[in-house]
C-alpha cells in the first residue's frame, strides 16, 4: 500500500514489528453441514491423479495487520469474516478440526503472491475499516485439509495441479501461521538513456531481446537511424513506448502490411492487405447504417436511429495458456473496456465467448511440458469468464467451444462484448487544452510487456518467464467504472474516451493524442505499491483503467462524481497542440517524441506469401445400412455435444433482456443464435451469432472464410434476423506468419472475407488478429494452431416477438430442408470422427443471399415454427437436435432433400452451406412453398413432426431399387443422453 508504514530498512524478509502483530483468523464450516467447496476440491485433486482420497475440507484464512486488539480481531471474525450460522473460527490458533475420517490430514495452504490482485483481501480490508477497525493490511489464503492414503509430496504435487497456480500463487505444505507483509521498496526515478546509436545488427537484436521489446532487426535499425538524426540517444521510456506502439498486437504489421501472394490463382500484390480486402468491401458496400467502422475500439451500427450498437471481439490466448482463470477474466474485462471506451462511452448489453482447447480426454502423458491439461485450462477459462462477466452484470449469451490437439499448448480464447451508444456520443476527439484523466484501478506491475508477449510464440518455459505478463482481474472496480462512466457521458463531461488495454497508458494516451500531442506526468498515477519504475507505470497493463479527455471546466464535476462512488480519478496531464508525446515523472522528462514517428515510423516490408491447398484424398466409403451409431457418436463429440455445464455458469438473463437463450426448448437443445432486447420496455432487439470452422481452413482458408460468414449469417437468419441488416466482425488466430506458407493462408482468408462480404452485402465493422499462436515443446517440436477464423455477426431485429427457436413445436407439421446438399464433406465432422479431413470443402452458392432473405420473410410472417442451421454434423445432427430439444419426434426422407448428391451417407453428413431445416405451420405450408418457389430456394418437403419422440430417417435402398430403407431409427432420449454426456465435467447431481 502506498501509505505503508515506514519502518527500519532491514531486509524485506524481516519479521513484522512486535507492536503490529499479524493476526491469523481461520474459518471453517460447522460440523455436520454439507461442504460443496471441499467436495469440489476432492474432485479436482482426484482429476489431477491423487489416489485414495477420503475427504477434503477447505478453511478460509485471513491475516490482519493494523492497530488491533485481540478483542477487535474477534469482532472482525464474528461480525464480518465468518458467517455465524454455518461457520466457526479461531483467532491466532488452528481451528479445531473435529473428527475427520481418521488419521491426520495433509495440510496444504494456497496464498496469492505479493503484488497479485486479491480482491477478497481488499474487500475484507474495506469492510473491516467500515466497521471502524484500524486495519492496515489484509491477506487471505485457503487452507486445504486432505485425508488420503498418499504421501505429503504427492498431495502437494496434486495440489499444485488442482488447487493453485504457481504463476500467481504459492502452494505450500502445512499451515502458514505467520504471514509477512512485503515491505514496499523505494525507487528513485532517473532518466536513463540507451546508447543505441553505435549499435549494429546483432547488438540491436540482443538489446531488443534483453529489454523484452520484441522488435525486429529492421525496426531497431529504423529507431537507431531516427535517433542518429536527432543527435541523441533514446531513453528507456521512449524505446518501451515505441515497442508497445509498434507491436504486432497494436500495429497489425502482418494484416495491415504489404504482401505479394502466389498460388494457383496466380500472383497478386497488396500494399495493405486488410485495407484492400476486408475494409475495402465495407467501403464499397457503403451502408448508411454503419456509423463507425474500423476506426474506433469497436464498430458501430444503427440500432433505432437514436442509439447505435457497437461490438468488439478480442483474443486473450497467451495469458489464458499460462493462467487460465486470470487470462480469461482479464480477456473479458478488456473487451468490456473496449466497449466502454467506444465513442464517448457505450453501455455493455451482452457478452460472447468462443474457446478452442485441446481434447478434454487427452491422456496426461500426452500433455507437453510447460502446458496444462486441457480440462484444467477449460475449467479455469470458464470460471474466469463467469466470475468477471457475471459480476459486471452483462449477460453472456452466445458462444462456441472447439477441440483439437493443436490447441493443447496454445488455447484460443475469444471474448466479445456488445454495447448500446447514443448517436451523439459516437464521435470523439480530444482537444488541445483538455485534461488527460485516468480513472478506475490503481497501477501495479501487472502485465508488463503483455502487448509484446502476445506477439511471440509460447514455449516450455513460458509458464515461468512470462508470469509478469499475467494479470488477475477485479470486476467490481470495473463495474464501478461502468457506473460512473455512463453517468458522466450523459452529463456530457467527456470529449474523448478510451480504455487502457495492451500497452497501458502508453497506448491509450499515444492513440488519443495522435492528432494533438500530450504532456503527461506518470508520478500522478496512484500505485498499488511503491517501487515502480517510471517506464513500468507508463506501460503497465494493470486492469480496469480508462483514460478520458475532459475540458478543465468539467473536471471538478467529474471528480465529485467519482468520489461519490469510490472511484479513483486523477489528472495525468494535458492534451497539447505540438503533436509530441511528452512523458515526465515530476520534472524529469522521460520521453519526448513526435507523434508522426511513433505512429507512422514502422518500417514497411513487402513479404512473400504462398499457398497450397491442404486436406487429404476424399474417402470413398460404401453406404452402410444404418447410421444410428454415427449420429450418436457425432452428438458425443465434445465440439458438438451440450455445453450446458459451461452455459449455466454464466448469467445469461441479467438486464432482463433475454429472448432466445443459448439453450432452448422443453429439453434444452442448442440455439443457433442469441436474441436480446437491450432497452427496457422496447421490443427492438439484437441477434448475435458466430461462425467458426478451422477444419475447412486446413483445406482452404478462402473456402473457410466464405463458409464461416455464411454460417454466422444463417445462424442469425434462422433465429429471425434480417440478413440485410447484419454486420460482421473478423477475428484471426493464426500461427507464425513470418513463414510465407502461413502468410499465404491469411491472405486467402482475407480474400474469402472480402468476397463473402460482397456476395451477401454484409459489411465488416471491426476485427482483430492474434498471430504467432504456436507452442514449442521441450523437444523443439513446433505446434501451430490451425487457421482459426471467427466471424461474429450482429443484427438488429425490429420485434423480438418475431423470432424463432430450433426446437420442434407441433406434431403433424411439415418439415423442409431449404438449400442444396452436395457432396461437400471436406473438413466435415463426420470425416473427423473417422480420422479424415477430405478435400471437397463446402462452397457458398451465389444465390445464398436471396435464399436467406426468403427464409427471413417466412419467419417474419410467422409461418415457420422452428428453424435450425445444419452445420457441425450436417443434416443428421441438425434434425436430431431439433427433435431432442422438444418432446416430439421427426420423420425424414432423404430422397426429398434437394441437391446434387443422392448417396444417403453424404446427404446425412454433408456440411454444405446456406441450408436450413424448418418446421412450418401446417396451415401455412402452401403459402410457404409458394414463397420458396418464387424466391428460387431449393425446397424439399422431407418429412413431418411426429408425436412419438423418435428420429426416423429413411431413404433409397443402398443397393438401389424402389423400396424405402430405414437408415436411422433412434429415440430422442438416447440422442439427448449422448449429446449431454459429451462434456460432463462434474459428476454431481
Amino acid at each position: 500500500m502506498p501509505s505503508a508504514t515506514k519502518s527500519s530498512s532491514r531486509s524485506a524478509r524481516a519479521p513484522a514489528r512486535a507492536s503490529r502483530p499479524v493476526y491469523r483468523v481461520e474459518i471453517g464450516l460447522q460440523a455436520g453441514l454439507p461442504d460443496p467447496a471441499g467436495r469440489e476440491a476432492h474432485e479436482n485433486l482426484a482429476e489431477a491423479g491423487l489416489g485414495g482420497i477420503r475427504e477434503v475440507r477447505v478453511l478460509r484464512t485471513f491475516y490482519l495487520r493494523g492497530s488491533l486488539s485481540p478483542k477487535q480481531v474477534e469482532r472482525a471474525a464474528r461480525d464480518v469474516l465468518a458467517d455465524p450460522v454455518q461457520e466457526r473460527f479461531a483467532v491466532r490458533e488452528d481451528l479445531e478440526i473435529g473428527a475427520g475420517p481418521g488419521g491426520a490430514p495433509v495440510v496444504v495452504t494456497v496464498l496469492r503472491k505479493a503484488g497479485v490482485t486479491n480482491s477478497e483481501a481488499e474487500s475484507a480490508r474495506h469492510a473491516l475499516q467500515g466497521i471502524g477497525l484500524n486495519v492496515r493490511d489484509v491477506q487471505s489464503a485457503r487452507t486445504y485439509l486432505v485425508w488420503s492414503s498418499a504421501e505429503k509430496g504427492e498431495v502437494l504435487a496434486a495440489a499444485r495441479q488442482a488447487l493453485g497456480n504457481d504463476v500467481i500463487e504459492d502452494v505450500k505444505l502445512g499451515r502458514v501461521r505467520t504471514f509477512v507483509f512485503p515491505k514496499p521498496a523505494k525507487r528513485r526515478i532517473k532518466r536513463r538513456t540507451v546508447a543505441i546509436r553505435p549499435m549494429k545488427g546483432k547488438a540491436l537484436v540482443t538489446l531488443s531481446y534483453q529489454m523484452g521489446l520484441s522488435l525486429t532487426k529492421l525496426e531497431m535499425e529504423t529507431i537507431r537511424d531516427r535517433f542518429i538524426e536527432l543527435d541523441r540517444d533514446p531513453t528507456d521510456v521512449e524505446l518501451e513506448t515505441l515497442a508497445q506502439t509498434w507491436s504486432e498486437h497494436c500495429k497489425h504489421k502482418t494484416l495491415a502490411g504489404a504482401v505479394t501472394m502466389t498460388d494457383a490463382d496466380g500472383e497478386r500484390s497488396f500494399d495493405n492487405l486488410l485495407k484492400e480486402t476486408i475494409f475495402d468491401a465495407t467501403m464499397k458496400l457503403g451502408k448508411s447504417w454503419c456509423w463507425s467502422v474500423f476506426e474506433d475500439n469497436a464498430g458501430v451500427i444503427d440500432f433505432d436511429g437514436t442509439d447505435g450498437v457497437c461490438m468488439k471481439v478480442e483474443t486473450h490466448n497467451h495469458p489464458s495458456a499460462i493462467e487460465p482463470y486470470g487470462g480469461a477474466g482479464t480477456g473479458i474485462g478488456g473487451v468490456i473496456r473496449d466497449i466502454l471506451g467506444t465513442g464517448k462511452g457505450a453501455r455493455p448489453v451482452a457478452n460472447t465467448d468462443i474457446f478452442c482447447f485441446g481434447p478434454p480426454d487427452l491422456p496426461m502423458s500426452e500433455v507437453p511440458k510447460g502446458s496444462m491439461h486441457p480440462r484444467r485450462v477449460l475449467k479455469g477459462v470458464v470460471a474466469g469468464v463467469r466470475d468477471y462477466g457475471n459480476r459486471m452484470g452483462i449477460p453472456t449469451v452466445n458462444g462456441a467451444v472447439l477441440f483439437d490437439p493443436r490447441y493443447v499448448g496454445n488455447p484460443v480464447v475469444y471474448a466479445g462484448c456488445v454495447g448500446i451508444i447514443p448517436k451523439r456520443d459516437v464521435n470523439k476527439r480530444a482537444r488541445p487544452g483538455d485534461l488527460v484523466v485516468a480513472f478506475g484501478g490503481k497501477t501495479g506491475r501487472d502485465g508488463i510487456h503483455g502487448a509484446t508477449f502476445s506477439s511471440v510464440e509460447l514455449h516450455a518455459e513460458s509458464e515461468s518467464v512470462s508470469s509478469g505478463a499475467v494479470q488477475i482481474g477485479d470486476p467490481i472496480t470495473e463495474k464501478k467504472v461502468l457506473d460512473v462512466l455512463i453517468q458522466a457521458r450523459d452529463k456530457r463531461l467527456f470529449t474523448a474516451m478510451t480504455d487502457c488495454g495492451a500497452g497501458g497508458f502508453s497506448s491509450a494516451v499515444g492513440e488519443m493524442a495522435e492528432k494533438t500531442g500530450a504532456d503527461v506526468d506518470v508520478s500522478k498515477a496512484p500505485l498499488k505499491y511503491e517501487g515502480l519504475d517510471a517506464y513500468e507505470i507508463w506501460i503497465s497493463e494493470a486492469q480496469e483503467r480508462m483514460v478520458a479527455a475532459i475540458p478543465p471546466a468539467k473536471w471538478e464535476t467529474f471528480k465529485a462524481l467519482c468520489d461519490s462512488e469510490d472511484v479513483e480519478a486523477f489528472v495525468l496531464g494535458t492534451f497539447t497542440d505540438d503533436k509530441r508525446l511528452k512523458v515526465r515523472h515530476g520534472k524529469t522528462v522521460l520521453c519526448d517524441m513526435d507523434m508522426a514517428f511513433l505512429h507512422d515510423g514502422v518500417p514497411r516490408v513487402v513479404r512473400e506469401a504462398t499457398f497450397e491447398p491442404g486436406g487429404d484424398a476424399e474417402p470413398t466409403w460404401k453406404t452402410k445400412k444404418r447410421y444410428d451409431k454415427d449420429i450418436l457418436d457425432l452428438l458425443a463429440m465434445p465440439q458438438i455435444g451440450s455445453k450446458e455445464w459451461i452455459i449455466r455458469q454464466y448469467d445469461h438473463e441479467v438486464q432482463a433482456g433475454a429472448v432466445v437463450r443459448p439453450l432452448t426448448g422443453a429439453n434444452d437443445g442448442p440455439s443457433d443464435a442469441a436474441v436480446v432486447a437491450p432497452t427496457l420496455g422496447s421490443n427492438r432487439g439484437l441477434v448475435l451469432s458466430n461462425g467458426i470452422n478451422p477444419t475447412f481452413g486446413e483445406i482452404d482458408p478462402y473456402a473457410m472464410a466464405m463458409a464461416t460468414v455464411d454460417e454466422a449469417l444463417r445462424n442469425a437468419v434462422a433465429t429471425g434476423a434480417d440478413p440485410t441488416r447484419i454486420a460482421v466482425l473478423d477475428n484471426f488466430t493464426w500461427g507464425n506468419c513470418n513463414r510465407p506458407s502461413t502468410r499465404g493462408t491469411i491472405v486467402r482468408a482475407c480474400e474469402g472475407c472480402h468476397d463473402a462480404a460482397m456476395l451477401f452485402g454484409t459489411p465488416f465493422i471491426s476485427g482483430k488478429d492474434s498471430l504467432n499462436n504456436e507452442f514449442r515443446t521441450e523437444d523443439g517440436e513446433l505446434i501451430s494452431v490451425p487457421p482459426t477464423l471467427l466471424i461474429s455477426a450482429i443484427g438488429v431485429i425490429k420485434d423480438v416477438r418475431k423470432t424463432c427457436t430450433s426446437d420442434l413445436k407441433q406434431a403433424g407439421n411439415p418439415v423442409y430442408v431449404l438449400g442444396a446438399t452436395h457432396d461437400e464433406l471436406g473438413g466435415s465432422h463426420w470425416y473427423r470422427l473417422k480420422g479424415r479431413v477430405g478435400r471437397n470443402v463446402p462452397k457458398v452458392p451465389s444465390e445464398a443471399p436471396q435464399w436467406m432473405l426468403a427464409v427471413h420473410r417466412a419467419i417474419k410472417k410467422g409461418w415457420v415454427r422452428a428453424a435450425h442451421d445444419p452445420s457441425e454434423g450436417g443434416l443428421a445432427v441438425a434434425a436430431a437436435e431439433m427433435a431432442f430439444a422438444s418432446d416430439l419426434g421427426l420423420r425424414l426422407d432423404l430422397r426429398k432433400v434437394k441437391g446434387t448428391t443422392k448417396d444417403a451417407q453424404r446427404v446425412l453428413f454433408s456440411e454444405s452451406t446456406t441450408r436450413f431445416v424448418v418446421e412450418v405451420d401446417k396451415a401455412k405450408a402452401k403459402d410457404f412453398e409458394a414463397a420458396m418457389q418464387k424466391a428460387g430456394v431449393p425446397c424439399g418437403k422431407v418429412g413431418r413432426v411426429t408425436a412419438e419422440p423418435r428420429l426416423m430417417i429413411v431413404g433409397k435402398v443402398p443397393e438401389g431399387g424402389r423400396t424405402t430403407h430405414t437408415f436411422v431409427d433412434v429415440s430422442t432420449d438416447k440422442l439427448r443422453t449422448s449429446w449431454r454426456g459429451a462434456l460432463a465435467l462434474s459428476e454431481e447431481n
Partner: protein
Amino acid sequence: MATSTGTPRRRAKTAAKGKASTKKSTKPIRILVLRAPGTNCDRESGYAFERFGARITHMHVNALLDNPKQLSRVHGLVIPGGFSYGDDLGAGTVLGTALRTQLRDPIHRLVDKGGIVLGICNGFQVLVKTGLLPGYDETGDGEPDRTVALASNMQNRYEDRWVTLRAVTDNSVFLKRGDLIHCPVAHAEGRLVCSDAVLDRMSAADQIALRYVTPEGESPASFPHNPNGSLDDIAGITDPTGRVLGLMPHPERNQFPWQDARFHRGTAPRKPEGLKPFENAMRHLKKTFS
C-alpha cells in the same frame, strides 16, 4: 446525490403505456432502489415497480449512508441482485454489515409504518446478513440476529436456470398463497441453511414464502427443480410482518411476455408471472399510503 446509471428511457415509457397507472389525483408511491458497487439488477427491478405506477429513485448506498433520512420519504426499499462489493467475503456480507450497523433504525421505521422491503438474489443475501430476515432476536439485545444463511449451492458453482416457484404463505403483501411463478435463478450462493429451531419457528409463523416446485407445481423438488439444494426447497422467506420479502429467484426477469422461456412454444401465460410480487406489493402500498 440520487444518481442513476439507468433511468428507464423515453421509449420505455411509451411502450409500457396502458400498464402503468398514472392517475394524477393520488399520492405517488415512492420506491428507493439501492445500488452498491457490484449491484447489477437495479434497472429492471425498479422498472417492474414502475410499471404499476411507482416513482423510482435509484440511489447509491454512499448517498443513503450520507443521509439516511431519505428512507423516511419513500414507501419501499428494494435491494436488487448483483454482487455487492464483489461478494468476496460471502454474498451480501459487506452491504449487509453496512445496513445492519448504519441503517437499522430508518429501515425499521419504514417497515413499521407499513412500507415494504424487497431483497432479490443478492438483496436476499444482504437481508439475511442484516438479520431483518427472518427477524429473530436470539441474543436478547433488542435487535434481530443472523439466524439464516444462504450457503454455496450444493454443486458449488453458479447456476442460471428457470425454476418454478409456489407461494406458500398467507403472510406476505407480495404473494398470494398457491400462486405459481416461473422465473430464473442465477446465483452461486442460494442454499438456505438454518437450525431446526429456526426452521420450526419460521414454519409456525408462516414465514416460509416461496418454495421451488416441479414444473407441474409438485413438491418436493429435487435438482434441477430445486437448483441449489436449499433446505425444504425454500426459495424465499418473509419477516413476521409480511412486508419484508427475500427470495433468490429473479421475478423481474419475467416481466415481458417474450422473456418467458416457454414463449416460443406458445405455452407462456399472456401475463408474465414474474409481475405478481410487484403488482401485489404496489396494491398494498396504494391501499396503505394513497
